[in-house]
């Protein structure tokens, strides 16, 4: 362990020396910009904080569909999340090293996101990247994604009339249509959809991102009676969606009367390493 620590410190020092701009830049909002280094992707480390969050999943009260509650989510540790989505080129490196399964299109562009990936594909990549870098990567939870997305996160709450199920479907349809706008589904180079207040790129563009959050149904008057289905995960983007984990192309797999995600991609969270945890480096 001491050897590994030393090695890491040396690496860090080398990284800083090699890039005089500094590997970590403090941003106006207090988050740190961490430049890419070797196989490590560029990250933004957000300071702990909290966010008003519309809970994911379906909710009922007294046996009727109810509006999802808004809860305050507290992020107690710094959250290091990738600045961009995983690139097509990086995903292809994982494929080349047999860590990931080949995609339908062998796109290897550096500045384009990897798209049409399933939740399982994303997790294959997580294992490969963690192995390759020695760091611990994972998909963000939906709460973390909402926290990181900030102003780019869309509250998907809709007023619910328990006696008229059409109100909810019409309201949801209107909003998803509105959010989708005129942007087509052709993946664009990184930066095409701009940065949010934390410097995170392309949130809620035309690529939706997998999270680790499972689809749940919760009775608000009996929270213990939740049904959890981890075969369906939350994906985030222009609007929140629930997608079966082996689906790579949700645009043809949405429900009959909804607006499906245009593309499925992902960005990862890096767990704090020992150094960071102990010394705040």
């Amino acid at each position, binding site marked *: 362990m001491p050897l590994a620590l030393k090695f890491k410190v040396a690496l860090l020092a080398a990284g800083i020396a090699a890039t005089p701009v500094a590997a970590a830049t403090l941003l106006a909002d207090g988050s740190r910009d961490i430049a890419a280094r070797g196989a490590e992707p560029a990250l933004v480390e957000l300071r702990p904080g909290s966010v008003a969050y519309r809970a994911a999943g379906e909710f009922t009260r007294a046996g*009727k569909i109810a509006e999802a509650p808004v809860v305050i989510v507290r992020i107690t540790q710094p959250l290091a999340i990738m600045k961009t989505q995983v690139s097509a080129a990086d995903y292809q490196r994982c494929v080349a090293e047999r860590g990931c399964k080949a995609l339908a299109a062998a796109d290897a562009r550096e500045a384009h996101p990897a798209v049409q990936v399933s939740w399982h594909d994303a997790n294959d990549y997580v294992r490969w990247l963690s192995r390759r870098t020695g760091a611990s990567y994972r998909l963000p939870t939906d709460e973390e994604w909402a926290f990181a997305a900030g102003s780019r996160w869309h509250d998907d709450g809709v007023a619910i009339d328990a006696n008229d199920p059409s109100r909810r479907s019409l309201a949801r*349809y209107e909003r998803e249509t509105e959010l989708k706008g005129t942007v087509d589904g052709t993946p664009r180079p990184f930066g095409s959809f701009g940065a949010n207040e934390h410097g995170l790129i392309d949130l809620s563009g035309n690529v939706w991102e997998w999270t680790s959050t499972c689809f749940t149904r919760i009775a608000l008057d009996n929270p213990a009676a939740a049904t959890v289905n981890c075969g369906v995960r939350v994906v985030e983007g222009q609007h929140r969606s629930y997608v079966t984990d082996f689906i790579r192309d949700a645009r043809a797999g949405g429900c009959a009367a909804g607006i499906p995600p245009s593309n499925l991609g992902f960005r990862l969270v890096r767990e704090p390493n020992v150094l960071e945890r102990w010394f705040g480096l």
Partner: protein
Amino acid sequence: MLTRRSTLMGAALAALVLATPALAQTSGVDLKLPRQRVDLVAPPFVHPHEQATRQSPKIMEFRMVIEEKKVVIDEQGTTFQAMTFNGSMPGPLMVVHEGDYVELTLVNPGTNTMPHNIDFHAATGALGGAELTLINPGEQVVLRFKATRTGVFVYHCAPGGPMIPWHVVSGMHGAIMVLPRDGLKDGSGKPLHYDRVYYIGENDLYVPRDENGKFKSYDSPGDSYADTVEVMRKLTPTHVVFEGSVGALTGKNALKANVGENVLIVHSQANRDSRPHLIGGHGDYVWETGKFSNAPETGLETWFIRGGSAGAAMYKFLQPGIYAYVTHNLIEAVELGATAHFKVDGKWNDDLMTQVKAPAPIPPKVEGALPAKTTKN
């Protein structure tokens, strides 16, 4: 049978017509009927028209400009060399009444690259008018035919041989609706009135792929021809869509209606079978084969549109919400694109449907309940 003599006669006749253009002209003005010019609108909308009419037959004047153009057919930006009647695929729905004369000026601008024509399934003779309307780029033609049969009918380009299927699946098809003079009726002769009418034209598209499986893009229809025919001959479309592209009738372009309104949906497919189904609704009155001299079927779940025909279905929406109108080969509806949406406003009817209990965990077995029946004993 095409003999040498008839060929010669044909040539002689053609020469005669060419030599005396005045003669050909005069036949067009001897009809002493009122004329009405109709401005066509692109699908899914339909130009204003009377449903039942007290007027006597007229000459209905239409003008369609053929346009060859590159279009985008799905959300991924796949491009397609389209051939269109009036700029849309399918072309516009034309509406006349039985006994009217349809007088079409068909224009093939010099900017196009190919000869085109039009075959009306509603017309009688000369291959539906195709023989009399073949025009080169830079030409136009005027065809008149009498609308003798009521119903919805396909029209399409039919320029001969292998050009026929290619032009049709490139977008050159549409429909005409010939209404009975006294309007639509149910099987017992009771008049039927629609509050809205939508024309849904279905396209089966055959887009070639490159060696990596990506859809290819071409600079002109001619460039795309050889590859496209190869895909066509496998009879497996890469896209099955309404109004020429995936999502043409969803989202911002979703069709609208209100609870209590009667909506007439005209559906045409010029090349391939289809099976329209309104998810969450029905067909109250369906002219499956599209011909109004036959009594409509009632209360249908799914109806069948034979390739090369149009059908019409009337439905009164009873419940608000989002409806999907699909071809109920669901692979084609979901994977290939043949889905439209209706957004319907109005008041929910609990009597027709209610969610008695929202989804919740399966309750545990109640103590003292009778054991489940088994096949033993």
